[in-house]
């Protein structure tokens, strides 16, 4: 640690009741360096950057910025010291326009008209086109991120923190973002880049600090390490790779015929003319940037949003107008994205949650009375088969960690022997080991003859398990193509390329694109 470091962190510790989020973490960032902060969900990355940004106060430890003691008590102080942050879940206001959103993130914003001009200037300099007067609610995820980035750039930051910036971007948009970050780096701005996508970090970052369970395990140069080595440092064990067993696919199980439905949410995306066939024994992966109709498609497939009967056909039966329970009776099951509150009732026990979707197919109720004995046995079976770590089925769903609850939710549907299973974001926010287990379970279910639709934003995951791949873009679904042999560029173009960018620039960026 020399005096030339921009930010030096030594011995930062932060404990919450029951968990130590950060335990004696130290590292330093040089001027003009892109520094990666790597770790699994729950490794303490977010808590660490929140301390740097003044949102969370450390229990002990010190920070130095430009060699001066640095202990921001609120984000305002951090911003004044030249620290800017782009959040993982955007801190944007949908009903306000771009300029208003940017003004809210500044200490002393100029009058609106001046600000709009500045926004246009900065967006031009860094190749991030943006109209200051559009409502943020109407923007795509990539454009929203540009709003956040420009909001930060207008303050000329010395340290720029980005929390999982690429999870919402198409590969082409990732390319544009990396160009912007390179440009910032050349201007001498340091970047603290948080991610768990290893290839990205190997392309972009100069050094990396790896966290595991709140402790720093290593600092390394990501360009000299393999992705696998870094993954194992992150997880702490060797990773089990899901295996596909080759199997034949047979007749069509589920057909979507020109499905069009308006979204229930004013900022949602309506589905337009979605057509898809899913065969028995096949996994169809549906990619796309969040907010392009994934939620609407899940709702239409699960029966939460009824459609015209013949829009959805299961083994020759029109089921578009059937509700979720009628579909369950037929064997069409779904596991929605939101674990707490949608897939599971947070304050109910695992037994009760098992009953909620399993009552019909597992015959857990008779003449309006519940069979608690059978239900508990069913819950215990899920816990045992899917290795859910919990003291027992009487615990509230809320008390489980994300990965464990996700295993329970997916296991609950798989054990009901579905003929068609729809899962949305099956491994979102789940640690690598649990994610591998869930993917393996889906592969096994498919080889047993079920038709599976996996909707996910994790392209690596889709490439790993899907037989065919299709992408949602503004509510339209592309044709499903065989997943094997698809290149990153092809996938990116299926996802709609870069929103709002010029053709030529898009082409240029796409050709330099390697990270995914």
């Amino acid at each position, binding site marked *: 640690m020399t005096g030339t470091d921009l930010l030096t962190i030594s011995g930062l510790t932060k404990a919450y009741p029951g968990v130590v989020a950060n335990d004696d973490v130290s590292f330093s960032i040089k001027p003009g360096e892109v520094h990666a902060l790597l770790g699994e969900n729950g490794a303490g990355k977010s808590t660490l950057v929140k301390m740097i940004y003044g949102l969370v106060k450390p229990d002990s430890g010190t920070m130095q910025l430009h060699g001066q003691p640095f202990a921001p008590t609120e984000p305002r102080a951090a911003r004044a010291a030249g620290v800017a942050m782009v959040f993982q879940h955007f801190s944007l*206001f949908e009903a306000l326009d771009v300029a208003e959103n940017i003004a809210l993130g500044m200490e002393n914003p100029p009058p609106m008209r001046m600000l709009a001009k500045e926004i246009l200037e900065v967006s031009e300099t860094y190749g991030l086109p943006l109209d200051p007067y559009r409502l943020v609610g109407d923007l795509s995820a990539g454009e929203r991120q540009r709003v956040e980035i420009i909001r930060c750039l207008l303050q000329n930051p010395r340290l720029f923190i980005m929390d999982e910036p690429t999870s919402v971007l198409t590969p082409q948009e990732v390319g544009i973002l990396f160009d912007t970050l390179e440009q910032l780096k050349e201007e001498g701005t340091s970047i603290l880049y948080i991610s768990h996508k290893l290839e990205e970090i190997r392309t972009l970052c100069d050094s990396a600090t790896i966290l595991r369970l709140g402790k720093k395990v290593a600092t390394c140069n990501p360009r000299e390490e393999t992705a696998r080595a870094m993954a194992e440092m992150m997880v702490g064990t060797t990773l089990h790779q899901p295996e596909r067993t080759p199997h034949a696919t047979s007749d069509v199980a589920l057909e979507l015929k020109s499905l069009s439905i308006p979204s229930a949410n004013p900022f949602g995306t309506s589905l337009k003319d979605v057509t898809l066939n899913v065969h028995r024994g096949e996994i169809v992966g549906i990619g796309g940037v969040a907010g392009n109709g994934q939620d609407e498609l899940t709702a239409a497939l699960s029966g939460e949003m009824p459609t015209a009967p013949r829009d959805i056909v299961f083994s020759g039966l029109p089921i578009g107008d059937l509700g979720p329970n009628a579909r369950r009776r037929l064997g069409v099951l779904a596991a929605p994205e939101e674990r707490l509150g949608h897939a599971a009732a947070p304050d109910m026990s695992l037994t009760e949650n098992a009953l909620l979707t399993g009552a019909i197919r597992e015959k857990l109720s008779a003449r309006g009375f519940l069979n608690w004995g059978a239900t508990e046995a069913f819950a215990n079976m899920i816990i045992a088969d899917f290795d859910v770590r919990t003291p027992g089925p009487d615990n509230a769903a809320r008390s489980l960690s994300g990965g464990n609850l996700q295993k329970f939710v997916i296991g609950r549907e798989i054990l009901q022997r579905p003929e068609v299973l729809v899962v949305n974001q099956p491994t979102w926010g789940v640690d690598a080991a649990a994610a591998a287990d869930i993917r393996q379970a889906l592969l096994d279910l498919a080889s047993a003859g079920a038709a599976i639709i996996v909707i996910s934003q994790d392209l690596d995951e889709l490439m790993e398990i899907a037989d065919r791949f299709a992408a949602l873009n503004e509510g339209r679904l592309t044709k499903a193509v065989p997943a094997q042999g698809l290149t990153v560029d092809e996938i990116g173009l299926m996802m709609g390329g870069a929103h709002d960018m010029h053709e030529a620039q898009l082409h240029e960026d796409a050709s330099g694109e390697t990270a995914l």
Partner: protein
Amino acid sequence: MDLSAINPILLVASLMVAATPILLAAVGELVAEKAGVLNLGVEGMMITGAICGFAIAVETGSPVMGFLAAAIGGALLSLIFGVLTQYLLSNQVATGLALTLFGLGFSSLIGQGYIGIKPPSTEKLDIPLLSDIPVLGPILFNHDLMVYVALALVAAVWAVLKFTRTGLILRAVGENHDAAHALGYKVVRVRLLAIMFGGGCAGLGGAYLSLIRVPQWTEGMTAGAGWIALAIVVFGSWRAGRVLLGAYLFGGVTVLQLNLQAAGMAIPVEYLSMSPYLITIAVLVIMSADKSRAALSAPACLGRVFHASS
């Protein structure tokens, strides 16, 4: 029935007077809801303002002191709501309903000794020259000060929300409290101030009833004015201009039906009495029928509990 007994000039002039209490309460609630707080206690804060204003005006002999006391009384009552919902994280709907019940009971307790008394009268402004203009003079320029204060308040709220940074922060807090917190804004403080502004305005509206419009104290004299103010805010799509329109519409129909009653119209009085409520709601519902636009102007965090846990 004798319709010629209705003087259109007097009708429009008294419309402004009839609308003022609701307008004051509604514009206060508009600010609170824009900050994301759903305070259903408007009725309770109005009636508390009515008795506070009445009592102080009677004791001091000064209507101005009365209005001041009404605003303070309403704001203090709303502060109870603020502490319960913002610090103790209680449910806003239940707390608001309780506030209304509390306000109604509390005001009749204070008001025991004031039944049947006449308050000191508030003078009309009678602006020289302007009030002599035929037709327009008596309609626009011959009112008491509070009518103009209410109008100025609506204009000020509109301008502050639209053009100032304070307004932008207030809207941001109501739109997405987690994001506002992440950017370093004091969500709870902004909301408390908005709640107190709403309480103060509701108190002024109540005092206008007891000191000018009626003017005397009777238990439960707000008679649902607080609820109609709430409805006007929602169906007025959280816009100051539409709130003004809704309040004047309500005032207008109220005055008209009173005149029709006096003129002996052959409709049961009950129907006439309910007409202002029905017509105001119907018109505003039709105006806000475009669902997507209405959803856009609704503060996204309205009624949601905020806790800075992360």
